[in-house]
């Protein structure tokens, strides 16, 4: 295989993004700005353009090209990209919360299981403060074990992250009520 042309290297991060655009993968992930935006390597200021946008009414033509200077710090050096790939991951649900620990049942996601086959008691102090707020019976979390890599170093890591699931909304309740009506209405009890 031969590497793509050097101009592709100037694209903000992964040059693969240019290929995604070209092949019409509409929902392909881009980890750079898309081609509507000019990427500037030089120090041309964007401030004038930004001032114009603050108060001017814009027509479609005005918005053809928007130029932003990409902060240097955001240009990815592959070594600086942090990744964490789990060797083992579970989805857990909290079954009991005590003063200092909580118990959870675990579904082995890595083994593609669908029911909980293990349980564990975990110290609440192992959770981040923002996750402690989410701790209650029935709460779901992911527990991942693997290596965190950045800057050429590799570090063992165990992460428990509580899932921030959508809250119940009026619309959910209305749909549930409708479903309940349908279910109740369809059954004739003897």
């Amino acid at each position: 295989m031969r590497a793509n042309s050097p101009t592709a290297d100037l694209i903000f991060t992964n040059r693969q993004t240019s290929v995604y655009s070209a092949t019409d993968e509409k929902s392909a992930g881009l980890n750079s700005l898309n081609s509507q935006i000019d990427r500037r390597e030089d120090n041309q200021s964007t401030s004038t353009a930004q001032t114009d946008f603050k108060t001017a009414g814009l027509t479609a033509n005005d918005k053809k090209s928007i130029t932003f200077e990409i902060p240097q710090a955001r240009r990815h050096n592959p070594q600086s990209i942090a990744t964490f790939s789990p060797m083992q991951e579970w989805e857990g649900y909290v079954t009991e919360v005590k003063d200092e620990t909580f118990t959870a049942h675990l579904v082995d996601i890595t083994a593609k299981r669908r029911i909980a086959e293990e349980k564990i008691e975990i110290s609440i102090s192992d959770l981040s403060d923002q996750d402690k707020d989410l701790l209650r019976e029935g709460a779901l979390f992911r527990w991942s074990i693997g290596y965190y890599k950045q800057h050429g170093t590799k570090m063992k890591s165990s992460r428990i992250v509580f899932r921030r699931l959508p809250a119940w909304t009026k619309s959910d309740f209305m749909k549930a009520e409708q479903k309940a009506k349908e279910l109740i209405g369809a059954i004739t009890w003897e």
Partner: protein
Amino acid sequence: MGIALSKPALDQLEVTLIGPGYGECCIVHVGSNRWLIIDSCRDSSGQPAALEYLQNIGVDAQEAVRWIIATHWHDDHVAGLAEVLRACKQARFFCSSALSKNEFIAIVTRFNEKASFDCSSGVSELIAVLEELGSSDRPHPSFAGPDRNLETIDASELAHAEECQIWTLSPSDAQLHKFLREIAGLVPALGETSRRFPSQPTNYLAVVTFVRIGSLGMLFGADLEETADPATGWSPIVASPGRPKLKSSVFKVPHHGSENGHSELVWEQMLHAKPVALTTPYNRGRKPLPCEEDARRIASLSGSFYLTSVLSKSPKRRASAVEKMIAQVGRLQPISNIPGIVRLRNGGMDNPNAWVAELSSEARQMDIPA
């Protein structure tokens, strides 16, 4: 399966208990290829255990299953129930009236709107059950309740020439009322982050089933726990003047053999001395059930006591680097067993009181330790 894959004779009675350590299912042959299924669980391949078992022994479930009872709504007793109902279109279905209550259905449908894909708590199963019960191509479902005779089959219709009756002995109105009060606290509030349907701590609503075949009785205790309240638990059942008074010689021990499920009154007044006892383990609670003490107690009261499977104490093995990191967080304990089967068959017309047990490799006869 370590037991013979053959149907019972038409005059033979059979009680088969399947328990994977999470969930249980009881399959009863009352004679002449008429079957009763109590509760549902899944086997290791994910199939409803009752359907898998009946197929394996050459029984056409659609034709042969006449009654299905759901004793209560804990997810370990309803896994696969909707499939069982769909496969057994002719079967009459019985459950507590909780399933018809708006309050219960409202909670279930609310939780179902937010059901997580891989932590099924039985909510989607309940919805599927309700949908099936509403379908027009099956008999209307009925309520189980105290001292309720679900079915009487004349002796002339059965190969063993004995009359068969199927009864439910619970739940009472008081039990239903307590259940509805308890679940009121589970209703999700607007704006509350969605979560898994929580477990209900007490088994107020369990349907106890009694099957009489001639002078032979079989008592299926579901998960009913004894309580201090004389209006709930086993006490009102034992005391009820309307229940069948025949004592049972086969006993599906309630609530996985736990102390909470034990009632001296039941053993004294509802069971023959030294009945055949069987139960399934449960290891998702604070402690595994039955514990050693429970097993000893039951074994001492029974002629024989069988457990469908024994709790695995060893956690799954993983790469050593993973296990080291697990150890830094806590100790993993297994909560899932390989499904086991205990099957009891009697000697038919010739020897109705002689029960022969067959056990799968996972099942155990629990003897009193020397």
